[in-house]
């Protein structure tokens, strides 16, 4: 059997307490109210972990710039990105791969697995996966059942590989029932809202986490 990651995933510099390996977290909030910064903080919190981000709502360059702003070291191939908009990513190197559209769920799935395996081959057995965001996947999909399958495949890999999943959705962009059905694949939910001094979060479904609105820092 493969090597398992025994340590819990930690979130230094945020109010979140550690979570077990294999945990999938749905981060729900309006994209303009600090939700991206919140998700990137959760992904970047431990410099020893590998990171794969599916950039569906932005470009790979924006994701890497966002990590850079958090003083997250993206060198050495530790951070890998699947760009779903085939943006102008020239010069970002082999750590960035691209598909033509957020509707190409098969391509995204294959590129994501490839990047995950690349990290594993480099010795990272603790990998944090980000999807930023699920909203374009749902909006561009002709049949939501394909998105359910994609989310089940990604969250299953994260769970069985003892990874960490941080997947973002803008709940205001979808019917409550759709968000509720998508949320079923996740162990817990982090709600995000804009506060006077930056983003605030509250956590549902995960033990020993802040239940009331709490500043991210």
């Amino acid at each position, binding site marked *: 059997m493969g090597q398992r990651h025994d340590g819990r995933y930690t979130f230094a510099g945020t109010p979140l307490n550690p979570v077990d390996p294999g945990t999938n977290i749905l981060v729900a909030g309006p994209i303009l109210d600090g939700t991206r910064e919140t998700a990137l903080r959760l992904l970047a919190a431990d410099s020893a972990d590998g990171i794969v981000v599916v950039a569906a709502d932005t470009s790979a360059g924006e994701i890497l710039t966002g990590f850079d702003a958090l003083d997250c070291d993206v060198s050495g191939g530790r951070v890998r990105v699947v760009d779903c908009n085939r943006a102008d990513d020239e010069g970002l190197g082999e750590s960035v791969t691209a598909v*033509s559209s957020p509707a190409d769920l098969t391509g995204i799935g294959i590129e994501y697995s490839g990047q995950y395996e690349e990290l594993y081959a480099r010795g990272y057995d603790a990998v944090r996966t980000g999807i930023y965001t699920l909203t374009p996947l749902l909006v561009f999909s002709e049949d939501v*059942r394909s998105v359910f399958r994609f989310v089940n495949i990604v969250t299953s*890999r994260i769970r069985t590989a003892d990874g960490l999943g941080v997947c973002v959705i803008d709940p205001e962009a979808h019917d409550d029932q759709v968000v509720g059905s998508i949320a079923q694949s996740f162990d817990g939910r982090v709600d995000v809202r804009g506060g006077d001094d930056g983003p605030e979060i509250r956590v549902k479904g995960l033990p020993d986490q802040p239940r009331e609105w709490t500043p991210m820092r």
Partner: protein
Amino acid sequence: MSEHHPTVVCADPDDAERAATVEALTAADLDVVGAATVAAVDAAVDESVDCVVTAFSFPDGDAFDVVDAVRLAHNDCVCILFTDESPSDLPRGRPDQVVEYVPRSIPAARERLADVVALAAAESTHAAFPVPDREKERLAAVRGYDVEALAAEETFERLTALMTTHFDIDVAFVGLVDEHEERFVACEGANWRTLAREDSICTHTILSDELTVVEDTHEDPRFAANERLDDLDIRSYAGARITDGAGNALGAVCCIDDEPRSYTAAERADLRRFADEVEEQLSLRRRLGAGVT
């Protein structure tokens, strides 16, 4: 008690490559069947297969044809693409052909594949629908309700007949949601036996203790592209979850019509009462069958 070994179909047209992959998977305590063509995969896959590992190119098709064949026979089956071709060189599949992927170009690729397959076959789902919490416990609970053995069919048929007149609807049914499909144990107004879980609205109803009401399937993003519902003339839906005493969702009691419609608060309360009656009948008959008084 014998240990269950996940069953894997390994598809590769190259005899030597396939033999090497089969050997690696077998060494990981998996029961492995080899297949050299898409047609051979089609013949080998049924609901007992936990995972299919496939190369990309075959004499009679490609990996996406394999995925189509697998999902026709077993819609939730784990599919893993194992190839040394670069993802960027592969043709793109349809959105519903999304798969897992392990590159054959990484070091010790077959050992890594065996790890991924062993974990995925035992614990993953490639289902195209949301899976409830504690699904294993829920399925064990559903298996405990053999409606035929409980002699509840006639009671449920009377209840569903009463529902169609009470709500003035085309179809009323009691459905139990199994691992891969919904089984209609009583159905007034239609001759339905089963419906694939990804096509069934009850798949969503069992996620919550609140009533699920879909006034118009064409306007609900969860169901607008579901052609199977149109085939069955399901245009509006109201369903109430039924659970066992431990809270496991067994299925739903539902109203169907071929036109968009809404349900008043009083009608919703009545539907809940019908569902409560079904729950109580199931519980009582199961206790009687077990000799519990």
